[in-house]
Structure formats: C-alpha cells, structure tokens
C-alpha cells in the first residue's frame, strides 16, 4: 500500500475508479460496433447476420457476454464483463436500401476486426473508407432502370415495342425518383407519384402507337417499384425466428404495393 502512487485512495476506491475507466472505454468500443451494425442493417443485411456480427465483435473486444436485440428499426446491445460491469447502448435505424457491395465490405471488416483485434482508430478509418467508396454514377443508374424495365416487359410477354417504351419510361421514372429524393419526401409518396406517372406515360405511349399493350409496358416499370424482394425477405425473416422484423417488413411491403396499385389506378382514371 505504501509504495502505491495513489495512496490517498483505498484499494476499494481504486478498484471502482478502474471500473469506471474501463466502462468508459467499453462504451466507446460499443459505439463503434453499433456503427458497423447500423451500417450493415442500412445496406440490407439480414437481422440475424447483424445480430451475429455485433455479438462476435463484442466478444472479440473483451466482453464476457453480449446480448443483442435487433429489429429493422433499432438495435439494443448490452455487454457485460467483470472488469467494467454491464454497458448498454441503443441505436435507432432509419432508412435502408440495398447496397450489396458495402454489405460485403462490412462483413469482411467485422471478420477481420474479430480475428486481428483492431484498435478504435483503425476501425474508424476502415469504416470511413467503406463509407466513401465510389458507387455507380447516375448514368449507370439510368441504364439500369431502362434495362430492368424492358427486360421484364419482355419477360411477361410484351412485344419489342412495349419493351422499348417501358425502357424509356423507366428512365423518366429515375429522373422523377431523383427529384423527389432530393426533397426527402415520404417513401410512399414517392412510389405513388412514380406509379401515377408510369401509368400515364404507358397509356400515352399506346395512344401514340409507340406501344402495343399498356399493361405490358407498365409491368416492366412495376417490377422496379414493387417490393417483391422485401416481401420474400420478410417471410424469410419470420421463418428464421425474427418475427417482429418480418412483420414490420411484410406490412411495409403490402402498403407499398397498395400505394403503387393506387398510383396506376389513378393514372387510369385520369386518362
């Protein structure tokens, strides 16, 4: 006791101070781990993958126990270790769009962190690098919208003329989508407007003899808008035990599909 530098603290108090310091560090690590989890979820990672990654990261950073609860809109994590006690953080998640490249990078990152025990700075740098990676430009996205639209117009039995019309309308919808996204409007409103415009243009194309069947032209555009992937994944979530996430996504995709059908019905009424 005599030769200890902080001899004015009792051993008990020293112990407590150390715990507080450790808890502070644990909080910082947990914050970064949640950054990774949040980003994975926003890039379209499955709930089970995100939970698993967060748990592994926590354990590799020295937690003895990690309880993770994730739904599509929130993450709650409590980690425990004798050294720092229990530490809890929550994160609210908003907005997600598939970015499979970033998801892949994040998955690799979390594996490497677990295997190599990275420092906070290293983790932050790597996350920033993933965040600032270049994405496909607007030109590629326009091409993509045209490609998907005309592919599915043909797939469902439309003529070549229908496919061409659907592709052009797809490009127009991408422009509208970008304009709406800039105003940060409600996602349902955006789909409603896209569907309505898509229906109007398809009807117009047939009237001008630039297409044969408005239904076939529209089905190509509908495949871009309709949440078919989300519907299938919501069922997958429910079957793998993530009932709440699955239900949320299921209801969301039903509502979105309803909105889109309403948009096309509106267009049919206007024509």
């Amino acid at each position, binding site marked *: 006791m005599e030769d200890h530098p902080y001899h004015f603290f009792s051993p008990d108090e020293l112990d407590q101070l150390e715990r507080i310091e*450790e808890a502070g560090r644990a909080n910082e690590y947990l914050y970064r781990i949640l950054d990774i989890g949040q980003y994975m979820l926003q890039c*379209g990672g*499955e709930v089970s*993958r995100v939970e698993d990654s967060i748990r592994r990261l926590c*354990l*590799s*950073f*020295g937690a003895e126990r990690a309880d993770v609860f994730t739904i599509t809109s929130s993450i709650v994590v409590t980690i425990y*270790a004798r*050294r*720092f006690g229990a530490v809890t953080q929550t994160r609210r998640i908003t907005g997600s769009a*598939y*970015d*499979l*490249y*970033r*998801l*892949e990078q994040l*998955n*690799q990152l979390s594996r490497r962190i677990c*295997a190599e*025990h990275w*420092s*906070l700075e290293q983790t932050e740098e790597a996350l920033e690098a993933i965040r600032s990676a270049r*994405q*496909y430009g607007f030109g*590629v*996205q326009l*091409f*993509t*919208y045209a*490609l*998907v639209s005309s*592919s*599915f117009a*043909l*797939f*469902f*039995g439309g003529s070549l003329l229908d496919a061409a019309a659907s592709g052009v309308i797809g490009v127009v919808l991408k422009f509208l989508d970008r304009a709406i996204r800039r105003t940060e409007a409600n996602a349902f409103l955006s789909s409603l407007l896209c569907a309505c415009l898509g229906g109007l243009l398809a009807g117009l194309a047939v009237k001008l003899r630039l297409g044969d069947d408005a239904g076939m032209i529209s*089905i190509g555009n*509908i*495949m871009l808008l*309709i*949440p*078919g*992937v989300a*519907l*299938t994944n919501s*069922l*997958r979530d429910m*079957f*793998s035990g993530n009932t709440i996430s699955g239900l949320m996504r299921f209801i969301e*995709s039903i509502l979105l*599909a*309803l909105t*889109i*059908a*309403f948009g*096309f*019905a509106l267009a049919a009424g206007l024509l």
Partner: protein
Amino acid sequence: MDMLIQLVTAFTGSLGFALLFHVRKEKLLLASLGGLLAWGVYLLMGLATDQEVVRYFAASVVLTVYAEFLARAVKCPATLFLVTASIPLIPGGSLYRTMECFMTSDLEAFSAQALTTVLLAVAIAVGMLFPTAIFQLVRRARIKKAPEMPGQERSPLS
C-alpha cells in the same frame, strides 16, 4: 421461343437489379447467371409438375445452393447472390395484380390472387431456408474441430 426470351430477360433483369443494388463487376456475371439458373430450373420443373408452388420451391432450393457455394468460393455473403438471382422468381407481378384487384374491389379475384402471392413467397422463402440451414450445420461442425476462440487474451479491453 417464349422460353428463350424468358431466360435471356431473366438474366438481364437480374443483371439490372444487381447493378441497382451496387454489386461490383466481378460478381455481376455470377449474380445474373444465378437469375438465369433459377428461371431455368423453374422451366425445367414444368416438365415434371404443373404445381406452381413446387416449381418455385425447387428453383429457390437450387438457387440457394448455388448462392451458398459461390459465397464460399468468392468469400462474400450469400445474400449478395440470393437477393439478385431470386429476382425472376419473386412474385412482384403477382403482388401487383393482387393490389389491382383490391383497388377495383373485385374481392373474389383479390382473395385468389393474394393467396397465390403469399404461397409463392412462402415457397421461395422456405426453399431458401433448407440449404442455408444445411450449410450452417456443416460450418458449425467444422468450427467445433478448431480450437475455441484463439487470441481472446489479446483483446484491447482486457
């Protein structure tokens, strides 16, 4: 001829969605080939059965095996291939027609179409479940042989 068109557009449709979901170039081809494979299996199963649910289920099982194998071969999440290659299968058109019937208050057609949509989605989802579970079992069996959590003592918080 119709089938050929469907196969080609299943490929290009998957390619489009792969681009939309930001898949990078080296995996684009693999992802779109998955779409072609899925629709090919669906068409082939047409020879054996006319039950749509069975055809979708079979296509989804084959597709998932393909995705899980590729995930190990090129070291990336299987989701990447699952999501993009299942594009020709997903009941988007069917989901839309369901809501269309709802809008026109054609309740009889609505209930029939809704049932189809949900059944197809269930067939695809369950079809993805089986192969994934088997691949996970194999991986766990392999991990058990390896020593438990090496390097735990080097973790930064201890």
